[in-house]
């Protein structure tokens, strides 16, 4: 980690310290330390099985770590009460990978849900706020549609609109560009930058899409086998010499394991040769 990544930790809105987790004896997260600072876009990179999703679940309070602490806006969510956790969650907006929109509700009702449930606003005010959120994500024409009628990109935009409904301080996006074509993906990147510029929201993006990551990020972090191997400003990160980061950035595949013919036959027949 360089100075540029640690200099701003006083201003951290999410502070992860020494978080570890194992499943069935396998270490999934190993002593992860990470800060997300106010107003920045931090992109968390990592291959499949690197522990990104597990770390995200811990940050959202959906799983409890074996060791370590996660402090969000000054509250340690690993040791706080359910009501404190609820209060913290209201300051976070989350857009899940597949959108997690409620299929039985229209897009408008999906965006209105947190406003109806968690505020005492009048219906007319909620309607106006929903419309403003849909305009912000470019979906003002699709409010009456149902999630199964939306394209992949529209679904992700609708999920972002719902995540922004309560005006959160922190926006967490899980794989926003996964499964989208380059044009739609670029549009979503612009939306993320627009939200940061317009609302000053702190954004944590979990992805493995390199192009998108380097376009939107202020800082980039990388997980490998449950360990955080680098956190840096994107310019420095691009020049990082760590072999796994180079392999990831240069899109090099792992070496295929080679098996000798006689070993293969022996394992197939179950007898040593």
């Amino acid at each position, binding site marked *: 980690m360089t100075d540029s990544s640690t200099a701003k930790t006083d201003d951290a809105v999410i502070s992860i310290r020494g978080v570890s987790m194992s499943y069935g004896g396998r270490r999934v997260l190993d002593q992860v330390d990470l800060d997300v600072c106010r107003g920045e876009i931090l992109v968390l990179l990592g291959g499949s099985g690197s522990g990104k999703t597990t770390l995200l679940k811990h940050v*959202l309070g959906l799983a409890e770590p074996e060791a370590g602490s996660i402090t969000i806006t000054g509250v340690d969510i690993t040791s706080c009460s359910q009501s404190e956790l609820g209060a913290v*969650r*209201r300051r976070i907006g*989350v857009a*899940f990978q*597949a959108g*997690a929109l409620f299929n039985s509700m229209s897009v408008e009702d999906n965006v209105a849900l*947190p406003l*109806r*449930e968690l505020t005492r606003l009048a219906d007319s005010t909620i309607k106006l706020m929903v419309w403003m959120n849909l305009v912000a994500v470019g979906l003002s024409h699709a409010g009456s549609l149902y999630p199964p009628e939306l394209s992949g990109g529209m679904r992700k935009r609708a999920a972002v609109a719902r995540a922004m409904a309560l005006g959160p301080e922190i926006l967490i996006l899980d794989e926003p560009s996964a499964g989208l074509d380059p044009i739609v993906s670029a549009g979503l990147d612009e939306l993320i930058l627009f939200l940061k510029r317009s609302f000053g929201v702190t954004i944590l993006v979990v992805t493995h899409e390199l192009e998108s990551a380097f376009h939107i990020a202020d800082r980039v972090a990388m997980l490998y086998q449950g360990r955080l191997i680098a956190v840096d400003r994107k310019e420095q990160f691009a020049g990082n010499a760590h072999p796994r980061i180079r392999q990831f950035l240069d899109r090099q595949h792992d070496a295929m394991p080679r098996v000798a013919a006689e070993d293969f036959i022996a394992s197939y027949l179950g007898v040593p040769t």
Partner: protein
Amino acid sequence: MTLLEQVGRAAIVQVEDVGALTMQFWSVLRKLPRVLPVVGARRRWRSAVVQMFAIGASALPMSGAMSLCTGFILALQSASELRKFGALELVVSLVAVGFTRELGPLITALSVSGRSASAISAEIGTMVVTEEIDALRVMGLDPVEITLAPKYLAALITVPCLTILSTLCGIFAGYLFLAFSMGMSLGVYCHAVAEAISLRDVGFMVVKSLVFATVIVHVGCLEGLRVRGGPEAVGHFTTSAVVKSTFLIILTDLGATAIFYLMGWSAAG
């Protein structure tokens, strides 16, 4: 792993299951008032109404037809024996008492179990797979209150209503048989039915149907919440929900009937 360890682990899993069932039941009971109109959260009762149509109204033709057929079968079978003693009129009390105490609640519960336990677990299981349940949690909303409680309320209201209607269908089948076979009039039949069943029988019917409703919706919800992995897991847990709820309905029916019998409540009058 030794045999003792295997037995121990299996026992722990079973105890955990019972614990999960109890915990879920308790948390839903606490949230049930939130679904009621006026005193509950705004608009929540509307989702309970939607569930009432799904669980109750659409199951009516099925359970009604099943009861009508079973009532006719019961009348036919008993008539062939009772005719030997010249006591064909006893078919009335057999059908009336049999349906009120036993067959009405049971047939309704089995038909609702086949339709709704699977539908509930599939719906909730899909919500787990598509991260909708997680989405509710991270929004600071309680999935128990929003998705489970309306289903419980809907089942507790509609299953007893369905039971009453399908019991009436079963008893009506008895009338059809007697009208054709010995030309009994509807007035005489209704009078004989009123003589045969007591208010206590009707009370048992309602209590049983409430218990069955709880079993169906409870097992459906719990199996749905246990879905892990991809969409194929939804199918597995849906099947499991129907099998478990059907078995538990028979088991609780046996338990309830045994308690009524042992307490001497089954005696007429």
